[in-house]
């Protein structure tokens, strides 16, 4: 182990970075899409310290212009969202999580008529089986549709409110 650390330091000194090894659990290896999410399942996402305002994550650091990417906890660990083959790409970044049950299922909330349904969707990648998205669609439709600006702002703020910090960001 000590030899490994020493040689890693030497490589770094010489400006050579070593590729990290992707954990086996991240590889898809022919596994199917799993559409089932339990309410307590965690969804992980990386973040930078700049988006922590007095100890809480601000929704300003989250975008719904496209479906936000997350890793589902059923098939991954929090730190997997910081994994990169390019060493230290996410050094100092943090990881936050939401439980599936913390994501609003539809917006706007009553008494207004819901116009968007929100929920997690498993979208596995070859190198990241746990990859999922927080999906938003118009009621009674399937395709992703970014919520209206006001609804998006409320959704982002709600998720900021409910985010749990799993790994604290240093940078």
């Amino acid at each position, binding site marked *: 182990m000590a030899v490994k650390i020493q040689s890693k330091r030497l490589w770094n000194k010489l400006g050579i970075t070593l590729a990290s090894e992707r954990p086996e659990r991240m590889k898809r290896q022919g596994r199917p899409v799993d559409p089932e999410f339990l309410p307590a399942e965690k969804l992980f996402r990386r973040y930078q310290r700049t988006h922590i305002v007095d100890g809480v994550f601000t929704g*300003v*650091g989250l975008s719904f*212009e496209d479906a936000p990417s997350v890793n589902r906890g059923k098939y991954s660990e929090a730190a997997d969202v910081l994994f990169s083959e390019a060493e230290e790409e996410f050094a100092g970044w943090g990881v936050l999580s939401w439980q599936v049950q913390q994501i609003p299922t539809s917006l706007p909330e009553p008494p207004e008529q819901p116009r968007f349904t929100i929920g997690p969707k498993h979208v596995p990648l070859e190198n990241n089986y746990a990859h999922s998205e927080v999906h938003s669609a118009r009621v009674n439709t399937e395709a992703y549709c970014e919520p209206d600006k006001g609804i998006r702002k409320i959704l982002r703020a709600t998720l900021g409110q409910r985010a749990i910090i799993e790994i604290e960001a240093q940078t």
Partner: protein
Amino acid sequence: MPMLAMPPQKHVVEYSVFYEANAVGKAANELREEKEKELNQVTQGSVFRQRWLLVNLAQQQITALSHLRTNWDSYGAPSPNQAAIENASRILFYMRSPELEKVRIVPSAEGGIGLCFKIRDRYADLETSNDGSILGVRYAGMEAPILIPVDGGEDSIKAALEQIRNHVGE
């Protein structure tokens, strides 16, 4: 109307003329340093100076965000554009010193700039977007967030800041 703690002294005014003349050399540097020290002493405690420093600091943070590259969050976030920067600067202009002291300036993952406030469990932000719009939100603890609409006009920005002031407290 904020007042200077002390009226500006004559030699300070003279110094500014000298300073603007861009005099060089050892003697000029020594004089510049000495006079800068005096200027700092004279303006210490000035409400104007304090505000000016706070605005400057906040403005520098906004300018720094304009240098972000696209994908700065690794999820494809655009960098803040000129419209978002100008609107954020306009909001700063209407902020009072206590707000300028509290504001956290952050890049928006949707493209733009967030001006965030949080005191204890009370949070609020105003977000200037790359499409030129401004929209805010506020909440306390785990209560449902409430939108702060802003039409971009002076009165609207002032009203939004007033709402934030009332929400997070001064």
